[in-house]
Each structure stands twice: as structure tokens, then as C-alpha cells.
């Protein structure tokens, strides 16, 4: 498949979306009872689980008197891709992903509030269909909020690419990823218009970069609205079951 028919003449993509549409995002907070916070997020066919432990006392060696240590672990399930393959946690790809996740999440967490502590974030990809990094960041944000950890704001991620040489596309699926176009991954703090992380899979022509980046940032904004709605719904359910007594109404 060549790059120029990623968008049909009718303006539709391979999965029937338009160029500036996200895949359907469904998410749920508080899916586990053992971790302090947890979330499950589906973005199209990409499915991710995130669990947050902490903040808890850091080991004496690693302990930092200034700010909290953020510890991430990204792993992909054996059955997550089309080809069944055992993926050990320590492989290069997951290690790189782990570092990138930590970078983006540390930008949002108010690190200085939790000295001498440690936050562990575990992310497991159950099904990979493009945009794994984005789904992981979005799920981790929800899990951090569920754990009651102070964040500056939501950190949201989205991908964008270029179709037919000049049309920017939002939220790239696996099929579009492998069919050749360059992919831009951005994690941003949408309210303050800051970028926490940015990565390109290939080179972009400088003329195209601004509009692709704009599309990705617009995607982050849209993701934030969806996440915010999910958080509010979750809070309403939990609060009303306890008659809002734990918040002193």
C-alpha cells in the first residue's frame, strides 16, 4: 500500500474516519482494588491497563529529599500484537518506552510535594493497534488521578501523520503506521499549551511540521475533554455511593 491512498477521494481513511477524527476512546477508573490508583483505556483497538502504587517510602539508596522518584514500567502482553511473541520486560523497546513515559508523566506530577517518596506506575498493553504510547500516557494520567496524586493538569498524548503528501491525519492506527508515513507523537499539557514529549518516527519536511504538530495538539485537547468527562463520571459514582461523607458534605 502506498502513502497516497491513506485517504480516499471521499475523504475517508482506511477505518472510515475522517482525517481529523480520533478513534473511539473508552475508559474506566478504579479497575483494581490493590493498587492506589488504576485505569483501563481503549483507544480504538489499542487497549491498555495502568496501575499506580504510591506515593510510598522510597528505598534509602534512591531516596531524594527534594522530590518524588517516578518509576515506570511498560510492558506488552504476549498476545498484544498480530504475531504472538514473548516480550521480556527488559527489552530495548520497552525500556525506551519506559523512559519516554516517565519524562511525560514527571512533567505533570507535582514532584516537589512528595519528598523522600516514590511513585510506581505499571503499564500493560493488552492489545496494540497503533498509538501505544498515547494510550499508555492517557491511561497513566487517569490512574494517577484515581490515586489522588497531585498533578499540574492532565497530560494527554496523540499522534499525527501526513497523508497524500499534504493532509495531516490525527490518531494513527497500526495499519496507517506501517504503511509508511512519518508519525509524530506528542504528549502535551493542553491547558498551558506546553509540550512534555515529542517524537518523530521519520523526518518531516519542515513545511509540513507546523500543521502536523497543530493536528496532534488539537488531538491532545480532544483527548483531555474525553478524559475529564470520564473522571467526573467516576467521581460522581464513587461520591454518591458514600453519600459524599468522605468529602465532608
Amino acid at each position, binding site marked *: 500500500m502506498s502513502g497516497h491512498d491513506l485517504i480516499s477521494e471521499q475523504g475517508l481513511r482506511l477505518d472510515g474516519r475522517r482525517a481529523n477524527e480520533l478513534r473511539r476512546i473508552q475508559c474506566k477508573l478504579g479497575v483494581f482494588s490493590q493498587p*492506589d490508583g488504576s485505569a483501563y483505556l481503549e483507544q480504538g483497538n489499542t487497549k491498555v491497563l495502568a496501575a499506580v502504587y504510591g*506515593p510510598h517510602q522510597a528505598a534509602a539508596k534512591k531516596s531524594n529529599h527534594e522530590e518524588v522518584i517516578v518509576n515506570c514500567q511498560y510492558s506488552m502482553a504476549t498476545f498484544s500484537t498480530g504475531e504472538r511473541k514473548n516480550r521480556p520486560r527488559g527489552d530495548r523497546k520497552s525500556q525506551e518506552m519506559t523512559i519516554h513515559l516517565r519524562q511525560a508523566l514527571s512533567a505533570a506530577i507535582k514532584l516537589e510535594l512528595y519528598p523522600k517518596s516514590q511513585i510506581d506506575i505499571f503499564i500493560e498493553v493488552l492489545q496494540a493497534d497503533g498509538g501505544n504510547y498515547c494510550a499508555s500516557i492517557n491511561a497513566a494520567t487517569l490512574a494517577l488521578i484515581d490515586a489522588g496524586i*497531585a498533578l499540574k493538569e492532565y497530560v494527554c498524548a496523540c499522534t499525527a501523520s501526513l497523508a497524500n503528501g499534504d493532509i495531516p491525519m490525527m490518531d494513527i492506527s497500526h495499519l496507517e503506521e506501517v504503511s509508511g508515513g512519518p508519525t509524530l507523537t506528542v504528549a502535551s499539557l493542553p491547558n498551558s499549551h506546553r509540550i512534555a514529549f515529542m517524537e518523530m518516527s521519520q523526518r518531516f519536511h519542515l513545511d509540513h511540521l507546523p500543521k502536523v504538530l497543530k493536528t496532534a495538539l488539537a488531538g491532545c485537547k480532544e483527548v483531555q475533554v474525553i478524559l475529564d468527562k470520564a473522571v467526573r463520571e467516576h*467521581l*460522581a*459514582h464513587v461520591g454518591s455511593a458514600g*453519600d459524599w*461523607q468522605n*468529602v*465532608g458534605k
Partner: protein
Amino acid sequence: MTTTVNIRLASSRVNNSLMNGDTIPHLFTPGEVITTITAQQNFMRGHGTYGEDDIIKASVAGCLERVNKLISIKPLKSRYVGEVGDVVVARIIDVQQKRWKVDTNSRLDSVLLLSSVNLPGGELRRRSVEDEHMMRKYLQEGDLISAEVQSIYDDGSVSLHTRSLKYGKLSQGVLVKVFPSLVKRRKTHFHNLTCGASVILGNNGFIWIAPTVNSEVEGDGGFTQNLTEPVARPEREVITRLRNCILALANCKMMLYDTSILYAYEESMKYRIDELLHQEAIFDVAFLTQHRLRLHDE
């Protein structure tokens, strides 16, 4: 021996949300602006908020609490944040010089100083070097204790004390861990329930269920552990039923206090103890309990 295994599809999962048509207070989410005119009204930033060029923003998801000019956002779930006077159930994780390190489910490990425990026998004196050597005899790694929060250090860690006969080492019973926010702050957290067991509702989300002992005060400061005498089966059944009821309420995010636990226990009587682990039973018990609590309130 045959066992019945209950496997259900994700699609036929029980929705255990006890949402009702109540009015929802205004909820804040991280990054949301709380107030923009700090300078004029001189609001003070409390927990769960942060300031960014004269604007106060929320940093956690929860409800607004306002005390005069202090604005704070309280999250619906977080690690245990200690307050002086709280009753906690905790586990010893380390024995150090003159103090024990204790896990209370809070952000940092808590400490129990040797000088803030009652010595066995209730002796009142300065703690000597011999006492330091004896520390592991009093409490060792893995022991569970009930204690009270004595003070909070600058870094937020908690100092405990057990200087009352009601606190001390716990012997036979069941520990249930729930999220700390589900335990309601009450005047008393020690309850001898009428169903025949006693419960310690730790503010830190650790709940201890034990057979009721007749409360003859022994002057030992709570260091004796009775691990030899077996607990009778009916008592054990009451304890397990209570455990399942507490887990059912916690599963449905209902507040835990003496009345809610007792109601849940009574509502659960139509189920066998092991049936209380099924989602349908959990939801039914929680729903009926909530209904009774609301009737009670009105």
C-alpha cells in the same frame, strides 16, 4: 472434593454502582481554575491546589472545601494522611534503635518510639539500654498493632503511641485492607458489635476483626498475644461474614462505620458466607444497606 467455580463474561459483569439522583457537588479536576481573583480576596491555597500567576488551580480530582479564606480540594481517594488522634492499625516493618518503623499505608513510613509505648507490666520509668535490647521481644517485624497518631513530623510522616490499654499488639483475628477514604471519622473506632465480634476501624484503611474478649483490664500494656487458644467455629464464622460484608461495602465504595457494617451484616444473613463473594450478593447487600442507612437518616 468438588468446588463450584463461577466464571462470567466481561459483558455480563454486575454494575455495582450505587448512583442515585442526588445533587452532585461541584467537582474539580486537575488543572481546573478555582478562583481567578486571589489578590483582591486574599484566598489561601490549601492542599490539593496550586497557584500560578494569581490564579488558584486544582491539582487533584475532588470536592472543594473552604474554611474561611483557606481553599482546599479533597480527593475522593488517596494514601492515608495522618491527623493527630487518629486510630490506626499498623504493621511493624523494622526494629531500629529506640524506635520501630511501622507501615500505616501513608506516604512515608511511620515511627513508634520506644518512649511512647507502655512497658509490659505497666512500669513507669525511663527507657534504659536494656529496654532497647528487649525491643524485639516486645514487637518484632510483621506484628500488627493498634495505635494512635501522636504527632506529625514536618515531612508528613507520622509518629504513633500506644500509651493506653486499648492499644497494643493484636493477636488473633482478620485484617482487611480498604482505601483509607472509605473509613468514616468517628468519635470511637473500637466497636464490640452485637453480632459477636469486635472491630477496629483504623483511619488508615486497615480494619481488624477479632473475637470479642471480655474486657477485664490486665495491666500488661497490651503486649500479650494469645495464639494458642483456638477460636470456636461459630466465632470464626461471624468474623469471616463480617470480613465479606466489609469487602462488599468497600467494593461498592460505601462508607464504613459501626452502623453500616452492622446493617450489612444483618442484610447478609440470607446468603451463605461464601456466596457473599459473588458480585450479585455484594451488590444486593450494599444496596439494601444503603437503603436502610437512608431510611435511618430520615
